[in-house]
C-alpha cells in the first residue's frame, strides 16, 4: 500500500490512538529515523509483532509500501527510551536493531537485521550477544565506523546478577558492546565497557572525526549519583577511556527514563544534551563534556522540556526536544551557528495527541527534526 503524495503518513497501526477511548494497549510510538546514503528518509517502527520499514523519496510527503523487518513475529520494545535504532553499513545495507523482551520482567535480547541494498527483504534477524541468560539486555543502539565495523551497545545485567549470586552489592547495570567486522552478519563475543550504568535510559552514540565511536550513557556514580559517563570505543568494543561527562550530582534511586543525546562537531568537540536534577530542579541541559568538566552548560527549554536530541554539521548545531504545555505536545528547538556558544530558539511544531521523542538528523550539511505523532504520523521538519 503506497500513500499518495501529501497524505499525512498515518498507517493503521494496531492500537494507534485516534481520539477514541479504547482499552487496547497503547502501541509504542517509538520510531527510528535516518537519512540513507541515497538521501532518502528511512523510518522504522513497530506494528504488533513486527518492526516495519518505511521509506520516503520526498522527505516524508509520501511513503513507499511498508516492508516487514522481521518476518516471524516476536516481542519488540518500542516505547520511550526503549526504541528501535537504525544505521547504514559501509556497503549501503540498512541495519535495524531492537530489543526483544523475554518473559521475565526487565529481560531481553538485542536483535539485528540487515537489508542488503537492492533487495526487498531483510535477512533473518540475529541475536548479537552470546550470553543467552534470561536477564536484562536492553536499550540498544548501534553505530557504523568508516572502516566498516558495526558496534552495537546495550545495557546488560549479567554482572549485577553475578554479584547478587555472591550476595554482593552492585550499583545499577553494565554497558556492553558487540562488534561485527562483516557488516552486521556476525558479531564477535561481547565486551564490557563499564560497570554501574543506570538501568533504563537510552544510550547515545556518535563518532569522533577519526571515526572512533563515542558512547554516552547515564551512569550511577557512587553512592547513587545519576550523572553521565562517556567512552571512546576501540575496534573490539572495549573502552579506550571513560570520563565523567556531567556533574549535576542527582542522587536518587529511581529510573529517570531519559537518556542523553550526543554529537561530535567538525572540530572534534563533543556536544551533549541530557536530563538531570540540579539543586533540586529538573532540566534538560546542553553542554560540552571534556575530561576536565562540562563547558558551556545551559538549561534547554522550559520546566517540562524532555527527551532532547542533538545533531551537528560543521560548527552548526541543532537541539530538538518536546515540551507538554498542559494541553499540547510542542516540538521546540535551538540552533547554534558557532559551535554551541550562542543559540536561536525555534518553535517547530505542535500536536494535541501523543508523540514520540524527536530525532535530530543531518543530510548534506542541513539539519532536520523528525517527529512521529499519533495524529499526524511521521513528520520531517527542515530546520531554518
Amino acid at each position: 500500500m503506497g500513500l499518495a503524495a501529501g497524505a499525512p503518513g498515518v498507517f493503521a497501526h494496531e492500537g494507534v490512538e485516534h481520539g477514541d477511548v479504547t482499552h487496547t494497549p497503547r502501541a509504542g510510538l517509538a520510531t527510528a529515523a535516518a537519512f540513507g546514503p541515497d538521501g532518502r528518509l528511512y523510518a522504522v517502527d513497530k506494528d504488533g509483532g513486527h518492526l516495519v520499514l518505511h521509506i520516503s523519496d520526498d522527505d516524508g510527503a509520501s511513503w513507499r509500501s511498508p516492508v516487514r523487518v522481521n518476518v516471524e513475529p516476536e516481542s519488540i520494545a518500542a516505547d520511550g527510551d526503549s526504541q528501535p535504532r537504525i544505521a547504514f553499513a559501509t556497503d549501503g545495507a540498512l541495519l535495524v536493531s531492537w530489543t526483544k523482551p523475554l518473559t521475565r520482567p526487565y529481560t531481553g535480547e538485542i536483535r539485528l537485521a540487515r537489508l542488503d541494498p537492492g533487495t526487498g527483504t531483510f535477512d533473518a534477524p540475529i541475536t548479537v550477544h552470546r550470553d543467552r541468560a534470561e536477564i536484562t539486555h536492553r536499550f540498544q543502539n548501534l553505530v557504523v565506523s568508516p572502516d566498516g565495523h558495526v558496534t552495537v551497545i546495550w545495557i546488560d545485567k549479567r554482572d549485577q546478577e553475578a554479584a547478587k549470586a555472591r550476595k554482593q552489592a552492585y550499583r545499577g547495570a553494565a554497558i556492553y558492546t558487540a562488534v561485527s567486522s562483516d557488516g552486521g552478519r556476525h558479531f564477535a563475543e561481547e565486551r564490557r565497557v563499564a560497570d554501574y550504568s543506570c538501568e533504563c535510559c537510552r544510550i547515545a552514540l556518535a563518532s569522533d572525526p577519526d571515526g572512533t565511536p563515542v558512547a554516552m550513557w547515564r551512569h550511577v556514580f557512587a553512592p547513587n549519583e545519576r550523572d553521565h559517563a562517556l567512552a571512546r570505543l576501540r575496534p573490539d568494543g572495549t573502552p579506550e577511556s571513560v570520563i565523567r561527562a556531567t556533574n549535576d550530582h542527582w542522587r536518587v534511586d529511581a529510573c529517570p527514563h531519559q537518556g542523553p543525546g550526543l554529537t561530535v562537531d567538525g572540530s572534534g568537540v563533543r556536544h551533549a544534551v541530557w536530563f538531570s536534577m540540579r539543586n533540586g530542579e529538573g532540566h534538560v541541559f546542553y553542554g560540552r563534556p571534556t575530561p576536565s568538566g562540562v563547558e558551556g552548560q545551559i538549561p534547554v527549554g522550559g520546566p517540562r522540556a524532555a527527551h532532547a536530541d542533538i545533531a551537528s554539521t560543521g560548527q552548526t548545531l541543532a537541539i530538538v526536544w518536546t515540551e507538554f504545555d498542559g494541553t499540547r505536545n510542542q516540538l521546540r528547538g535551538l540552533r547554534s551557528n558557532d559551535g554551541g556558544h550562542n543559540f536561536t530558539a525555534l518553535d517547530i511544531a505542535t500536536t494535541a495527541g501523543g508523540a514520540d521523542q524527536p530525532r535530530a538528523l543531518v543530510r548534506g550539511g542541513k539539519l532536520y527534526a523528525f517527529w512521529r505523532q499519533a495524529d499526524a504520523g511521521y513528520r520531517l521538519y527542515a530546520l531554518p
Partner: protein
Amino acid sequence: MSPSSFRAHPTPMKRFLALLFAIAAATTAGAADFTLLDRTSAHPLTQPRADARPTVVALWASDCVYCKRNLRTLAGLSKANPHLRVLTIAAEMPGDATAPEIDKTGLKSERFAFGSDMPEAISFALDPDWRGELPRTYLFDGKGHVQARSGVISAAEFRAILGLK
C-alpha cells in the same frame, strides 16, 4: 456494604470510595484489576485531601526495579498500620503482567493505571512538576501536609513523615 449505607453516613471518605467504585465499574472492562485513568480522573488523586488518615499515592511501572522496593516497604507498613491507605498508580497501560508485578510485593492497594489518554496529559494532571522518573510518591500525613518524593523511600522515612509505627 450496600450503596444505601453511603447515603446514610455520607462521610467524605465514604463518598470518595463510592466515587471510586463508580469509576471502577465504568472503566475497568479491559483491565479488571485496575481503574484506568485519564487526565480528568487522575487530577484529584494527588490533590490535598480531607482524609484524617495517612495516605500514600505511589506511582510505579512494571520495568522499574526501584518501584518494587517501595511497594514492598509499603506492604510491610500496611500490615503494622491498618489505618494507612495506599493508592498505587501504574504509569503504563496495564497488560497481563502488570497485576502480578504488584501482587508479588504483597501490597494490598487501591489500584489505578494510565488509560488510553495521552500519557503526557495524565502525568501533567497528576503533577506538573513530575518529570517522569519512577518511583514517584505522594505522602499525605492526614494532618493537611503532603510531600512529593522521587526514588526509593526507606521504611523509617515513611514512618517519620506519616506518623506510622
